[in-house]
């Protein structure tokens, strides 16, 4: 028994016998070109277990799922087995289905304008006879009704899925996943399936999942919502930087804060906090911001000050940062940014509730926004490093008849040197760079405009250690030069080394403000509110801070 658990410090719940694992992954790695995105992954899921899989964006979760579903071929040497039977690699979808491995994708993967039975049977349609290729609708409907009956739910199989309640949509997705399973067998992977669900629908969804589990099916639940992972799963596996940080941890023995620590790791040793560069002069102020769940949010950022916004998914921290940066349409609010060129010293004012055709007004006011999804919002992959870097200023610095080569070359060279972008070739397409270097180009694109207010969203997500170091140093340097900085991040380690103060959001409100000497653990505890003392202590600190906010 102990031999089978080498490396896993936690006993498995069904450790009474050496029963086969429903899913066993061992030694699976994946290399893209020179980048190793998965390294020696091993995890085991017992029959009837609800197993959680968590990790930051870019940790390799989706690569693992793509290997399990046969989209990617793993490097040679690994093994994947279901109920003790090894699968051939790469995984062949039909073989995996026969073995009882099925997946429910984001937003349940349903086709809204097709009926229930068509959705459930998609990819499995049987024809009526040897000559006709007509789908045997009667037999299909009967089969679907039977599957639904095993779930104890009655839904009209002829209803369009788009007409169903959120609860019944989940039933349809689960029915599709379990229909090929032997009774009491099989494994369903839920890949961020609950992302678009409301709280109520989510609760009912988990009731359904638990009833399926009770019949002996195993479930792997992949989610960003650590709260639900801790609440509903039996054990959890944490991926970090393409490796298993810890696997098979019983969720009874861990809370969200501890999970977060495992997800982030202790990669802060290369950084020490430096003194604050905050000056007494204001850089920008936000009044009455309303976006998503956020109402009436006020914030003042001084020159040289670095303010962190954090909170769990849906808390409003990310939405607030995006609205301030001009990337998300707000319902209301005003952003005032100090105007370097103004004669009367009056700040420039941007109405956040107004419909903005582009970020032009923000950029002119001196606001720069470093977006989270770098290849969708930040950089055009097919354009070169230099073209991407200079894009926001190509009109203001160029002449309408010519872009002007000199300033572009100088600006690009300066940013390549400052951020150590590799390879240092300004004419390479951005898409051919590594993730860390792409992130540096994105940061350089906005630093080069010498912003008054720099807003960053997850600035070090999915970058390597060296790039993270360079990015953190560059952000500090920018603050030292007098720029106000707002960072929205779930990475408490980044916030702890960078920020002068951190605002913690919950349900659309900044409920806690941490300042002074910031400690990663305190930020995590305040984010999840797991330690009553931490929240209380922070609330105690809150009075003077609010005065500051209201100034």
């Amino acid at each position: 028994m102990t031999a089978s658990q080498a490396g896993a410090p936690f006993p498995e719940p069904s450790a009474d016998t050496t029963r086969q694992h429903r899913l066993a992954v061992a030694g699976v790695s994946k290399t893209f070109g020179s980048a190793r995105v998965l390294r020696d992954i091993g995890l085991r899921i017992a029959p009837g277990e609800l197993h959680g899989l968590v990790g930051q964006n870019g940790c390799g979760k989706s690569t693992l799922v793509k290997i399990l579903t046969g989209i990617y071929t793993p490097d040679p040497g690994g093994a994947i087995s279901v109920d003790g039977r090894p699968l051939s690699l790469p995984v062949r979808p039909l073989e995996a289905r026969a073995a009882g491995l099925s997946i429910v994708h984001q937003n349940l993967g349903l086709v809204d304008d097709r009926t229930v039975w068509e959705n459930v049977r998609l990819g499995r349609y049987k024809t009526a006879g040897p000559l006709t290729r007509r789908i045997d609708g009667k037999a299909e409907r009967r089969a679907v009704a039977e599957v639904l009956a095993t779930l104890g739910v009655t839904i009209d199989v002829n209803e369009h899925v788009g007409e169903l309640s959120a609860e019944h949509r989940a039933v349809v997705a689960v029915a599709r996943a379990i229909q090929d399973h032997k009774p009491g067998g099989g494994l369903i992977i839920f890949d961020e399936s609950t992302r678009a669900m409301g709280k109520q629908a989510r609760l009912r969804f988990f009731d359904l999942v638990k009833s399926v589990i009770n019949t002996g099916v195993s479930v792997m639940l992949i989610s960003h919502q650590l709260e639900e992972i801790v609440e509903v799963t039996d054990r959890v596996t944490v991926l970090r930087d393409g490796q298993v940080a810890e696997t098979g941890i019983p969720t009874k023995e861990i809370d969200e804060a501890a999970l977060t620590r495992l997800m982030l790791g202790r990669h802060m040793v290369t950084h020490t906090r430096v003194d604050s560069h905050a000056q007494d002069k204001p850089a920008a102020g936000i009044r009455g911001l309303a976006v998503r769940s956020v109402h009436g949010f006020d914030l003042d950022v001084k020159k040289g000050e670095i303010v962190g916004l954090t909170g769990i998914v849906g808390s409003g921290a990310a939405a607030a940062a995006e609205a301030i940066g001009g990337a998300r349409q707000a319902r209301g609010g005003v952003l005032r940014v100090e105007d370097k060129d103004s004669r009367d010293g009056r700040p420039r004012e941007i109405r956040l509730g107004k419909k903005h055709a582009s970020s032009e007004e923000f950029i002119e006011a001196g606001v720069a926004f470093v977006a989270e999804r770098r290849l969708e919002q930040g950089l055009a992959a097919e354009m070169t490093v230099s073209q991407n870097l200079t894009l926001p200023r190509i009109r203001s610095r160029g002449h309408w008849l010519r872009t002007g080569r000199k300033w572009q070359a100088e600006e690009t060279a300066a940013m390549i040197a400052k951020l150590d972008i590799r390879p240092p070739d300004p004419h390479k397409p951005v898409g051919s760079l590594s993730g860390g270097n792409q992130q540096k180009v994105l940061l350089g694109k906005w630093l080069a405009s010498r912003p008054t207010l720099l807003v960053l969203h997850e600035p070090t997500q999915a970058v390597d250690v060296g790039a993270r170091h360079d990015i953190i140093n560059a952000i500090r340097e920018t603050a030292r030069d007098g720029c106000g900085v707002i960072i929205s991040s779930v990475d408490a380690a980044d916030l702890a080394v960078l920020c002068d103060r951190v605002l913690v959001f919950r349900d659309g409100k900044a409920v806690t403000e941490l300042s002074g000497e910031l400690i990663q653990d305190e930020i995590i505890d305040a984010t999840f509110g797991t330690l009553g003392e931490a929240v209380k202590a922070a609330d105690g600190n809150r009075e003077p801070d609010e005065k500051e906010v209201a100034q």
Partner: protein
Amino acid sequence: MTGTAQDASRAAAPAPPPRKHPGAFGFHDVSARFSILGVWAALIVVYSFTEPTLFPRTGTYQTIFGSQQPLVFMTMALMCTIVVGEFVDLSVPAVFGFSATILPVLVVNHSWGVWPASLAAIAAAVVVGLIQGLLVVRLHVNTIVVTLGMSTLLEGLSLWMSNMSTISGLPSSFGSIANQDVGGLPVDFYYGLALVLIFAYILWATPLGRHMRFVGASREVSRLSGVRVDRIRLGAFTFAGLLSGIGGVIAAAALGGYDATTANSFLLPTFAAVFLSTAILEPGRFNPLGTLLGIYFLATGILGLQLLGLQAWVSQVFYGGILVVAVTISTLLHRRSS
């Protein structure tokens, strides 16, 4: 302290791979950029040997370079929208024909002066472009539906205006704006050349061109970088209308009239030449100069084959076949080199 950590992380980072090609152009680069031009040269050599009496004559080159102006204007109109990421503006030949029909109809049937009639024809084309732009950009209607529907509608209107027959009888003095001989070629050849050069310059060297390229590459990235994406897309459709309109007026002037039924036949050659440009000069990217070279390459191939005695069907075979083959080769070379 941070210094040593930094050095350590530097040392851990992989060194950039050595560049295989120290110069600006590697072998693949050159072959991807100029392979079509090589094929063009080979075609000329082959035709010169197989048709020694007919092909290597000044008249042949006058035909090749003097007859493609309608296509030059239409491809540049299509280029406007393709560069900003709208790949299927099917209406270009119809707008061209619409403008080329309005001019002689107004002059011959309604006794307008040639200049006001030309302006009216161009204005009509611009309005059509603007309407299509508003439908696609503001109302988010599918581009294929808008441009296919509009193109059929305009063809119908053109046939109605012209009473389904060729309208001719534009004053010959007006024809000289297109036919005037300059150095052996009609003056409208130079209009087309100038248009292509200006377009290429805009894309290559102006902020507007850079914005257009980025809008074509990613609307969201452009929007967040302060580019007014919708304005650029709307402008592209409107400008496509303008170029089609001007091209139509010049074509009508050159011919002394217009046959509204002919416009439709330009649809495939227009797309063929524009897509062929992704295999010339700038591999993988639509570019005006490559389009111009592509037009003359296609014209050379077809003329040569016709001199060899092949019938009119050969142009369709040639346009279609070359398009598929050339773009496939270019795509493969581009992928391997990057």
